[in-house]
């Protein structure tokens, strides 16, 4: 009843092509942003920021980046953790080696370095695809893992590859309190989500999707595979790199190469699959799901008074992840985002089924 678009007429192409053509969506989004920017920082307890909100935001950003590559361009990547690591370590180097480097600049430069590495490892995608490519991206993962551990100049001379940053500030505001960190991440994520949404709506986004759906046909209608694939790798790696830098700088503060190991890559891929391949919203839903599930699995046995060891809990988590991935691939290959849009379709017609 509330979600119905009768009477919302579009008289111009501009109005017809806006991001959220339905008024209720716009209102809901504004309300959501208001809550996220105003209400949450005022009211949430510190635990919520540290354990849930900040990881959720940063991982959504990384999933967003990965979704551009996997969901929109169809190039499967198992090396996302590597691109995050490149972003984090590059940003760290800019921050440490250059006096007075602004935080945002080093984050963006970290992303830029990640882009370069991403394109480099994306080059094989021009000749190989699908399964072979997935393995090729693992090369990036292992190489970067090793580089962070062994190459001294990557970690600025630290022995075990562990580095830390302190005294972060943006435009003179100190990023010490969890609420400030949260707001900083939220602003960046909101900005990138808007950018990504517009990118996938634009010509380049359609080229990616054409490439994904059938590369030969796309090439026939004049889409350059080299350009489409490499831009997807570049944009994806940039976003993932910024997310990696945020993960290191804001969430962890001090980190070592293991923070970006192959498990992180798989985790992000799962977010994209469960959230929804080829959907901006899916990145957020997937990230929320994967951040919350282990926490819930830790808590639920406690509510019922069944003690459960951490090892068992982590095995259970991995079993549930595995089962859910197969489940989603079978039942709803487009993930949670698709369920959400189905619900919206139903709401439009409610109470009638057709």
């Amino acid at each position: 009843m509330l979600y119905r678009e009768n009477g919302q007429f579009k008289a111009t192409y501009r109005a017809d092509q806006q991001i959220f053509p339905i008024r209720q969506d716009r209102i809901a989004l504004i309300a959501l942003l208001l809550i996220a920017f105003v209400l949450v920082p005022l009211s949430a307890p510190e635990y919520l920021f540290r354990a849930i909100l900040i990881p959720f935001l940063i991982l959504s950003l990384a999933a967003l980046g990965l979704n551009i590559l996997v969901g929109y361009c169809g190039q499967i990547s198992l090396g996302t953790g590597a691109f995050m690591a490149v972003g984090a370590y590059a940003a760290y180097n800019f921050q440490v080696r250059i006096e007075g480097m602004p935080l945002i600049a080093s984050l963006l430069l970290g992303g830029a370095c990640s882009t370069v590495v991403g394109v480099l490892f994306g080059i094989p995608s021009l000749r190989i695809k699908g399964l072979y490519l997935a393995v090729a991206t693992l090369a990036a993962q292992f190489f970067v893992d090793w580089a962070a551990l062994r190459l001294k100049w990557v970690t600025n001379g630290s022995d075990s590859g562990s580095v830390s940053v302190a005294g972060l500030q943006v435009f003179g505001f100190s990023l010490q309190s969890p609420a400030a960190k949260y707001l900083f991440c939220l602003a960046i994520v909101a900005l990138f989500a808007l950018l990504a949404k517009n990118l996938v709506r634009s010509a380049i986004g359609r080229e990616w999707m054409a490439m994904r759906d059938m590369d030969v046909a796309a090439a026939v209608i004049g889409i350059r595979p080299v350009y489409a694939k490499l831009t997807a790798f570049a944009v994806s790696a940039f976003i993932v790199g910024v997310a990696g830098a945020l993960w290191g700088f804001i969430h962890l503060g001090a980190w070592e190469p293991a923070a970006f190991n192959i498990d992180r890559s798989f985790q992000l891929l799962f977010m994209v699959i469960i959230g929804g391949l080829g959907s901006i919203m899916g990145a957020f839903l997937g990230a929320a799901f994967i951040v919350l599930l282990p926490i819930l699995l830790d808590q639920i046995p406690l509510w019922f008074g069944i003690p459960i060891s951490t090892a068992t809990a982590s095995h259970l988590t991995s079993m549930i992840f595995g089962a859910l991935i197969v489940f989603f691939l079978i039942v709803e290959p487009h993930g949670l985002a698709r369920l959400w849009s189905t619900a919206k379709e139903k709401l439009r017609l409610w109470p009638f089924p057709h």
Partner: protein
Amino acid sequence: MGFFLETLIGGLMAGMLYSLIALGFVLIYKASGVFNFAQGAMVLFAALAMARFAEWIPQWTGIESKLLANVAAFVLAMAVMIVVAWAIEKLALSKLVNQEGITLLMATLGITYFLDGLGQTLFGNDIYKIDVGMPKDPVIVAESLFQGGILVSKEDLYAALIAAALVILLALFFQKTATGRALRAVADDHQAAQSIGIPLSTIWIIVWSVAGFVALVAGIIWGSKLGVQFSLSLVALKALPVVILGGLTSVPGAIIGGLIIGVGEKLSEIYIGPMLGGGIEIWFAYVLALLFLLVRPQGLFGEKIIDRV
């Protein structure tokens, strides 16, 4: 020279073991068109089952003989792997028939996580020993040719022999039997195979059981070398570049790829490693495979797939 040869032989032996795991990948890909990322998890699962059954069977039945306990554990573990194969087919693959390769790959990723969790829940997550009586002591050969001779681990030698035997057996199975032909038909095209009356579900159960068998053998060999623990499933990640190098559809490719990677890894670690800061074993294989792909995307022996519009 003696040292070089020793490294070379060590590399060949390690490579043979990589081939063994790579063989699991190739078998499933060849016979069902699924790139089975779960092969590593299956190796871990099989090895865990084997290790634990070998420990439990004497407790349950009071069997004293070690050989008997090991054989019983092997049979039980194989039975478990067949059940796993059956469950994977029924619960996951049969519902994903005719889907794209990427979807199937991601499904096997899910299976990987599920099996890792399940195996460790059922069988525990400590380090377990598999003791099938493989000789541990190394032998020194060719003492007359080089000073000090060449040190060869007997265990590796046996492992290589077992792997070679397995490969020959499987190659015969694929080339000479009717089932083998049916398996290859399914790999080429699910739909076409179904339409000429090949029962897809039976074929898949067979091929996953065979892969389970290979995983079990690989798990026992690796497990008796390194002990059974979670890191065993990571050995499979070593086998991926092998598959890529050799070609996804080629059994000889898996073997030669394994040998190349094994030797390349050991030699590079010793001769190039110190220049780069050591530990390059973890990525050398991948970068080698990657560079190779740029030149020959289908791998050494892979079938060339030509896109036509």
